[in-house]
């Protein structure tokens, strides 16, 4: 099919396709549009928000330890009310939030939730369960947290 293309289109394809493939291969996919993972890795600091009253269970501690290990960062923890902490996450002032959050909470549209931490059975959508949350659209960062949760 390529051979039937005109010279210009052929040249375009021969330049665009390899560079596209190279750019896919060179960077890990998915990437973060707001660059959370890059920022954490470069600064060496993970700004962690913990919702007041939530205690980290063993699975969450393990996940957090793996995230810190993979990014080579240290946590800078700040506690607060869920509204305050999640609003700061949404604005990009915090990198990761831990708390007991229900899947049907209105915040599930404003930020992205990780899978429940340390639960074997599927929890009802209305039940607050321990989980992490990241800024919406930070897909690479969410992948890293999810892989660390395994």
């Amino acid at each position, binding site marked *: 099919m390529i051979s039937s293309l005109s010279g210009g289109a052929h040249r375009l394809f021969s330049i665009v396709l390899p560079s596209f493939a190279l*750019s*896919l291969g060179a*960077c890990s*996919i*998915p*990437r*973060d*549009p*707001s*660059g959370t993972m890059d920022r954490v890795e470069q600064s060496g600091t993970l700004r962690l928000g913990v919702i007041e009253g939530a205690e980290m269970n063993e699975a969450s501690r393990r996940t957090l330890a793996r995230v810190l290990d993979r990014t080579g960062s240290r946590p800078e923890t700040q506690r607060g009310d869920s509204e305050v902490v999640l609003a700061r996450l949404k604005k990009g002032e915090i990198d990761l939030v831990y708390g007991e959050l229900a899947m049907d909470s209105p915040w599930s549209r404003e930020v*992205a939730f990780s899978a429940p931490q340390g639960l074997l059975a599927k929890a009802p959508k209305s039940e607050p369960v321990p989980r992490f949350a990241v*800024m*919406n*659209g*930070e*897909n*690479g960062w*969410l*992948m890293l947290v*999810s*892989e660390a949760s*395994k």
Partner: protein
Amino acid sequence: MSEIPSAIKQDFRNAKKLEWWTLGWMGSVVVVMYFTMGASQAMKTALFEDVLSLVPAMTFLVSAHLEPRAPTEKFPYGFLRANSLAFLGSSVVLTFLGLFLAYTNGMGLMKGEHPTVGPVTMFGETIWLGWLMIAALVYSVVPPVILGRLKQPIAQRISDKVLYTDSLMQKADWQTGLAGIAGIVGIGLGLWWADSLAALLISISIVKDGITATRSASAELLDGAPRRLEGSGVSEEAVRLQDRLQQRWPEGRIRLRESGRYILASVDGIETPGEIPRAEELMDPGRSWRLGRLSFTPHGKEDPAHHR
């Protein structure tokens, strides 16, 4: 005229078979797309388009069931136009739904919404859902493009507007798939706007399909001259018929219109001649079945439109 002419019976059967295949294949595409769409607007819009692509197939099958039915007391001209009516309704819906989706996706783009496409765990492995979305989009392109190519020549032979528009929409489906894939790859590369932009382009293609279908369906309902299957121009076949009729009755006024797949011709200002030419003499070779009626109206008895 209520029976399907024998010249196109086999094609008509094949068309029905292809539309059943369409329902089956596109149904499977809809299921695959539904389970992989996640929060991607491009996937959601492509899913809408796939659901909408079932409508022409259903319209065709319903009208194919009605068309061969004998005329009744209440419908003495039979049900030849059943497909035109259903098609007009569905194409208007298609247009408005496309406009709604274009508005929603345009707003999403303006608000700067960042789509979250997270991980999914399969067979113990955590992979990015975007890869599954791309696989689903690739799959969603294959059946419609093949079916569209198979339907188009049949639609031309049986002069079926619904089938033809359906085939055109399906043949162009690869563009939707490609736009969707570009949107997902864009998300993967951290370009949050790529998804909404792809979704906006897909919605615009839905609006375009809707407008094409509405124009095609409404011309017939307004008793317009028989249209070409592609575009909105008058069909060449009808022009040739008009010329042949005009040659035979130069003093008469020739008017042609369409009823379903048939052409109805009227020669005004002429008494019914003793010898009426056979359809084979007036139509192109192999197309005589398409002349559904030839009527003559003596001078002074024409319908109101004649005097304007």
